[in-house]
């Protein structure tokens, strides 16, 4: 059973077909990249998976269960995490608070339980300690120690991207959607990111679907690549197959 299966989805905005009868599936444990020129419908695809948009036609299923008509938080509760092209953090909260919010689904939020927090042996305090340990683990992995108590709006762009990645990992997802994770990063940060994405898959067993423009990075770490243009599938396959595909070259460089 594929981890994620997208079947014949169509999404239009006015007269524009952002996604046009698009189908593909992602297997468990893959790093699967989606590439295509600007405006090809890549982010729309992620927004459909996350139920921010509902496609007019077609279905999306996750671990064999249809998720097309769930709410966004319903999709999240099944174990799908996401980062965004234009960083969507809670900008007036600290790094720690942002990461703790990533744990929200794993927390019990009872008010009475919170009121017993002052007693360290209490259930609520024990739970809090457990969640903080998980958050500390993510902080260690992503090297965010120095930014723990800083408001995220004050952090440099590259660090904000890492905090967003950290928040997604705090959800302990089975499927992680990364929307242009390397955009705006310098070379060093990008090297780190490549290393971490591999780690995320190998150590945590998280399946990764990634939208990315940096071809070198895509070819480096992807198991398979999907190319879309005008919302349609142009090509799909192993990295070396895809980059030598004539239609792909045409789409990117223009037809001779």
């Amino acid at each position, binding site marked *: 059973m594929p981890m994620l299966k997208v079947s014949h989805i169509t999404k239009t905005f006015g007269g524009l077909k952002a996604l046009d009868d698009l189908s593909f599936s992602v297997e468990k444990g893959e790093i699967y990249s989606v590439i295509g020129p600007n405006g090809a419908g890549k982010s729309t695809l992620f927004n459909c998976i996350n139920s921010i948009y509902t496609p007019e036609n077609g279905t999306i299923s996750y671990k064999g269960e249809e998720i097309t008509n769930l709410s966004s938080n319903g999709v999240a509760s099944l174990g799908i995490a996401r980062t965004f092209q234009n960083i969507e953090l809670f900008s007036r909260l600290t790094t720690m608070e942002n990461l703790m919010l990533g744990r*929200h689904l794993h927390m019990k*939020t009872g008010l009475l339980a919170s009121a017993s927090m002052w007693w360290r042996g209490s259930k609520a305090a024990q739970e809090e300690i457990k969640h903080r340990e998980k958050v500390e683990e993510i902080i260690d992995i992503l090297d965010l120690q120095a930014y723990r108590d800083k408001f995220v709006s004050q952090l440099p762009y590259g660090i904000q991207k890492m905090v967003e990645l950290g928040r997604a990992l705090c959800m302990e997802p089975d499927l992680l959607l990364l929307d242009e994770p390397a955009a705006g990063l310098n070379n060093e940060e990008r090297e780190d990111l490549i290393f971490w994405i591999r780690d995320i898959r190998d150590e945590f067993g998280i399946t990764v679907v990634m939208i990315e423009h940096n071809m070198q990075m895509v070819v480096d770490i992807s198991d398979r690549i999907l190319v879309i243009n005008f919302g349609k599938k142009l090509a799909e396959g192993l990295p070396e197959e895809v980059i030598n595909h004539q239609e792909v070259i045409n789409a990117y460089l223009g037809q001779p």
Partner: protein
Amino acid sequence: MTGQLIISGLTIGSIYAMLALAMSIIYKASEIPNFAQGDMGMISTYIAYMILVVHGWPFWMAFAGAMIFAVILGFLFEFLFIRRAKEPNILNLIIVTLGFQLFLYGMTGWRWGSDQRRLGMPFSETDTINVGGVVISHLGVATILTSIIIMVMLWFFLSRTKLGLAMKAVQQNPMAAEINGIPKDRILGISFAISSVIGAMAGMMIAPITTLDPNMMWDPLMKGFAAAVLGGMTSLPGAIIGGYLLGIIENLFGFYVSLEFKSVVAFLIIVLVLVFKPAGILGHHYVRKV
């Protein structure tokens, strides 16, 4: 004399602060100024009146009953009306709150009539304490203390509980909150319930000062709204400071300048704030990247 005016202003300012707080909580979460806020508190106060005066049960039961009613009313308002709005924009939702306000107003008139009633409180409005020449009634002390207790509880809730953190997340970025599995609608419902309770507290504290009748919340609500604008609409400490400040300014103005125009000060302040500092004293406007 000025000291006395400031203390009396602080008493009425506490009520403005509570209503401003209630409106700011909803505004932060949804960008809706909830014009039904006052009458939601008014009808909860009527529930307290029913339990206390009509049934003759003790005050604590009336208080608890009114608060439970306020929680249910807040949840129901969000669940039945706000959530049902299809592809809502802010203007539509404001109209929904105005409609709900008219509905509650009409219901109250139908059920209890427009007679002015008296809500007996365990705090006397005539017995006073005298601190260094400044006189304040027991009810005044209770009102100021109530507003402070609400603030402390709200601060604890927002800064020390997971639900409070989730509420801040929804306020700052609803879409990202949902992607992290935080149910936006339920959090908004909780916001409405909390502000409904705060509004009901304000209603219960103001009913003994004025009288209990269907119109009693209209003026305080407008003042509370003015206080929230003064504070910046998006800042809870701003709403509190705005409320106290408005109560004091209004009282000083009434004594030193013109008693007839006392009520107009609130609206003068709205205009001045919008002209000179649109973000309010503590507000900050979110600027969204496009």
